[in-house]
């Protein structure tokens, strides 16, 4: 902060306070502007956009509290320190509740003033910096998503397309060994594409978009679709899918495709981390405002220590028996989808015996 002096605005009807503040702060390297009443102070706030405001609470005309509120409406990053004429803790507390950063009881020494103002400026810089970082992060995320969409996915799609050309015999015959190798590579690329897809859908699930697209979704219909899609995989792993009748359940307020994705992920996991001969049961209940869906498996379970982290991106609790694990995005996507619906998801588990996921969704 060596180039630009932090700007401090002092609003106080007491000339002696204004002058002494001005002297002390200018000596300490601040650019100081003075104002003797609330309305003028607000005008100066608009005009000069100070970093920090020292505001007297007890002034004739427009009172300090009102100035404070209006000031924060003008600039929600501004740091306001209130000066309380009487060290009444009540008014200071009220001001801080309204958004003031700190208070300074009169009378105060020059040193006290400097300490409080310096701390306030540090705060201001932190707030600005973190907002800038947040904006930068959002910008990067957005750009990265379109970058991923195009630059990363296209060449992989081409590789995949050429594999398809060769494997379907469009480029001539090949030996069984060559075919075997190509098929392995095709699987690798498929996995990589899946990762990019997952990652993209992760970034794409947006609460606002979801809230705009909500419709009535019948759990019975939803799970019928999921069952059809996942039955073959479950049969292959010798895991039984048991769906209770969900016909009596009321509709949930949801985006059908997203719900399908969220629950498919859960049931897919329940099958993948199961044991041969095990089962996955899906049951439902209606609450007052929510529809509750429970997915219980008889699988390997999740260690207690890992349980709080299973919804984190790229977290993988343990290897599924005999299979390569995924990238650890499935549950993260599921939770993000459910959160965007204003629902909730909870997991409980007994290692060696199974895991149960409970999902609450708002009723339609």
């Amino acid at each position: 902060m060596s180039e630009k002096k932090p700007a401090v605005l002092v609003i106080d009807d007491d000339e002696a306070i204004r002058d002494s503040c001005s002297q002390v702060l200018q000596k300490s390297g601040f650019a100081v502007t003075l104002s003797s009443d609330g309305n003028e102070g607000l005008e100066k706030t608009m005009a000069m956009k100070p970093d920090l405001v020292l505001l007297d609470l007890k002034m004739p005309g427009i009172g300090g509290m009102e100035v404070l509120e209006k000031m924060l409406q003008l600039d929600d990053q501004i740091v306001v320190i209130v000066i309380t004429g009487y060290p009444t803790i009540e008014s200071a507390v009220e001001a801080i509740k309204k958004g003031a950063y700190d208070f300074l009881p009169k009378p105060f020494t020059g040193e006290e003033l400097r300490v409080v103002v310096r701390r306030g400026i540090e705060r201001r810089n932190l707030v600005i910096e973190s907002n800038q970082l947040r904006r930068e992060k959002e910008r990067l995320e957005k750009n990265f998503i379109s970058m991923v969409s195009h630059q990363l996915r296209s060449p992989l799609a081409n590789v995949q397309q050429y594999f398809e050309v060769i494997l379907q015999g469009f480029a001539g015959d090949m030996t069984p060994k060559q075919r075997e190798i190509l098929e392995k590579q095709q699987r690798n690329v498929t996995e990589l594409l899946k990762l990019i897809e997952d990652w993209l859908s992760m970034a794409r699930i947006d609460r606002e978009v979801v809230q705009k697209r909500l419709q009535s979704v019948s759990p019975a219909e939803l799970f019928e679709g999921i069952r059809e899609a996942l039955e073959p995989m479950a049969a292959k792993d010798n895991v039984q899918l048991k769906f209770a009748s969900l016909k009596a359940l009321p509709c949930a307020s949801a985006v059908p495709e997203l719900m399908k994705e969220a629950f498919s992920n859960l049931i897919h996991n329940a099958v993948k981390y199961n044991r041969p001969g095990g089962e996955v049961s899906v049951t439902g209940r209606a609450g007052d405002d929510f529809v509750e869906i429970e997915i219980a498996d008889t699988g390997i379970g999740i260690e207690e220590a890992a349980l709080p982290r299973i919804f984190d991106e790229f977290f993988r609790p343990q290897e599924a028996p005999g299979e390569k694990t995924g990238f650890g995005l499935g549950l993260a996507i599921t939770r993000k989808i459910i959160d965007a619906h204003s629902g909730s998801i909870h997991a409980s588990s007994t290692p060696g015996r199974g895991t149960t996921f409970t999902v609450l969704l708002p009723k339609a």
Partner: protein
Amino acid sequence: MEKNRNILVVDDDPDFVDAIRIILEGASYSVDFAYDSKSGYEKLMSNTPDLLLLDVMMGRGAEGIIFARKMRKEEKLKKLPVLMITSIREQTGFFFPGQVEHPHFLPVDELVEKPVEAKTLLKKIEALLVKA
């Protein structure tokens, strides 16, 4: 089945065009191609094919969509079957696979996603040509 029908592929990705061309020629279609929308449009007008395979994301954005809209205003291209190829859904009004968010938004007949299985591609093309 009637073969040697003409298909025009408009896509700015030469590798993808090449792979698709091999598949289509393998299935006895005559294939012409263009790597940008301008020359694609010229070919479409001068030597109208039986079917158009059109990429969504070309040039600086979703040029394929503008392309499709523009050609639907030409009398002789109004009924031409268009199969649109896309590798990105979220930027083009598509939310999830197979679901067109704004059906009126895209004046095309069918969609396939990159990469596409040869079987799927050929089946869709055949269906569109039969219908046409």
